């Protein structure tokens, strides 16, 4: 199918715009406004619904994202895994479960944000944009998994080569221009999320506290080198 101008923009231009914005704005934001890097947690304001919304949302999302990344780096192994029907079903059902978990969590966070006065009052416009894009992303992703089986095979055999073609600056539109609308929507909203990423609270993903796994418990800061300072010149 020949690429329409719409396809050309969304799949050949938008990805690069998105990645460019992501890299440049993220770095500039970290240099100019490091204070603004925060997860902006609202647990303090409303503690009860928070658990039922945030925990399934994050676990669901992270699992599905990890699965997508795995597919990106070992697509052949995914296709090999899927060659046995039972294994394919296990993978697809697990993925769908976590996707649904994420969706339930996301709906929970949005409802909580609308219902709780305290949380609503601290919401920024960009929070709504993120919620909206995530909603599109989750619904389209689950839609692909349900209506266009089998998503993991499609992804590994078609979308992953397309993404790598982007990386080599030779976007292969033939791989995506024939895709159903739901798949295209999923890809487009993914890149939109990448584009808006540094303007929103999503930056908290980049400052995940991995260092806690290995740092020493206590942190002491000295203003001067206490061993050397009393040595006379």
């Amino acid at each position, binding site marked *: 199918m020949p690429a329409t101008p719409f396809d050309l923009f969304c799949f050949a231009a938008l990805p690069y715009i998105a990645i460019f914005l992501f890299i440049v704005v993220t770095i500039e934001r970290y240099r100019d406004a490091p204070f603004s890097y925060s997860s902006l947690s609202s647990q303090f304001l409303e503690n009860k619904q928070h658990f039922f919304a945030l925990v399934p949302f994050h676990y669901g999302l992270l699992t599905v994202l990890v699965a997508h990344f795995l597919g990106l780096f070992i697509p052949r192994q995914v296709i090999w895994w899927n060659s046995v029907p039972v294994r394919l079903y296990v993978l697809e059902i697990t993925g769908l479960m976590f996707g649904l978990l994420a969706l339930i969590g996301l709906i929970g966070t949005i409802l909580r944000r609308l219902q709780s006065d305290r949380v609503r009052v*601290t919401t920024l416009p960009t929070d709504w944009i993120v919620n909206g894009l995530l909603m599109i992303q989750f619904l389209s992703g689950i839609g692909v998994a349900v209506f266009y089986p089998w998503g993991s095979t499609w992804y590994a055999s078609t979308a992953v080569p397309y993404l790598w073609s982007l990386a080599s600056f030779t976007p292969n539109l033939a791989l995506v221009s024939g895709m159903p609308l739901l798949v295209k929507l999923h890809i487009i909203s993914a890149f939109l999320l990448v584009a808006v990423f540094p303007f929103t609270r999503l930056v908290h993903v980049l400052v995940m506290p991995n260092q806690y796994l290995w740092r020493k418990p206590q942190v002491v800061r000295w203003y001067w080198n206490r061993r050397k300072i009393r040595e006379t010149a």
Partner: protein
Amino acid sequence: MDVRAQTSMVFHLDKCIGCHTCSIACKNVWTDRKGTEYMWWNNVETKPGTGYPTQWENQDKYQGGWEVTEGKQLKLKSTSRGKVVANIFHHPHMPSMDDYYEPWTYDYQNLFNAPEGSDQPTARPISMVTGEPINIEAGPNWDDDLGGSPIYAENDVNFEEVTEEQKAQMFAIERLVFFYFPRICNHCLNPACVAACPSGALYKRGEDGIVLVDQKICRAWRSCVAACPYKKTFFNWSTGKAEKCILCYPRLETGQAPACFHSCVGRIRYLGVLLYDASRLEEVAKLPDEELVEGHRSLILDPFDPEVIAAARANGIHDSVIDAAQDSPVYKFVKVWKIALPPHIEYRTLPMLFYVPPMSPVMAQQTDTGIAHTDGDFFHDIENSRVPMKFLAELFGAGHEGKVRYALKKQKAVRWYRRAVTVGDVTMEYAEAMLRAADCTPEEAEKIYHLTAICSFEERFVIPPSHREEAIQMMEDPLEFKQGVGFGFNQGPHRGP
């Protein structure tokens, strides 16, 4: 011996009048911003009472502080390397705004702008979070002065080890008693908040021991709020950052006492340097409960000991700070006279704020022939005082009464000694016998009296110079190289943006 200096504090609870001036001073200086309205870095609680946040001492609920595991490891109760991932999306032990209170103000403009009506306009309470009218349900000191309340005072966590009979006596009419318990961040030697922060945003300053939150690194993971057993790390719900008492370090660095200290009406607060041995921290934090108070005290070093002074100098501590440690009123209360005790030492954070436990009225009646002399049993009224020893022991002795009893006995003996001096209805022999029984001497009693009752501002606050001129940026001489531009620029003065 890794000698370090810490700016430490003593609060004399026998002097606290519960006026809350300290709280207001801190509030107006630091926590009057959006997101901080509910925070009281300094708060004053009524004991018995549930405190702020409600029942903060209930570590079964909040899992604050440290514990020693079966394998003799010191571990945080609320988080760990294993638990940090699970807790990061939703922290199970974090207090929420409902545990503190929803801050409110009053719609004063309504008094001027209300439309014509049949009743008087009022200034309705409106929430400082949502801006909507609220029903006021709680405040930061909602149980202020309510010793004896069946809702608040009876639910004081420290009553768990007190017998029903003793508890009933505290609540009986005409025997009601309460005292005030002002609290700030203890700037602990083994802070749980620092150890809990996944990003490492919290740190302890090496030069003076003040614990701070790096606002540029804090990512609102909220572990510190849960981990602090005293609940003195707060979450700014507007900026999404953790904040806490900073011991007014900008004031300390310019030689002024912290705002709450300076404004204290009862003059209960003392500030001074303590030299401590940082190499023994873990060993002390792992001691069994009954040895913790003495262990903590043993960390504090004698600033007159030449070995300690040499080790301090080797560690970069300036002579002026060692001088301040020698003059320190905190050292006297904690180490020399032993009448100031750390709060809830069983949390194992090794707090550097010490309390002189309050005396309370006696249970027994006075005889009408005057003061009852009971031979040999000088301190019966301490044993019979309205606040049970066990309750004070829960607060200041990790449940063990010995250290609290010692502190109260000595205070009592000093009072009787001074009574012998100024009133004379007690003989000096009797007073001196009391002093001996309280492990005190007339000379020591005079010093305690002076520092408790008639000391000057400068004697109460012995602030060491902070030597900011020795800080890193000062060590790089701005005039050392040609074309140097000096210091103080956040961005170099180059052309263009």
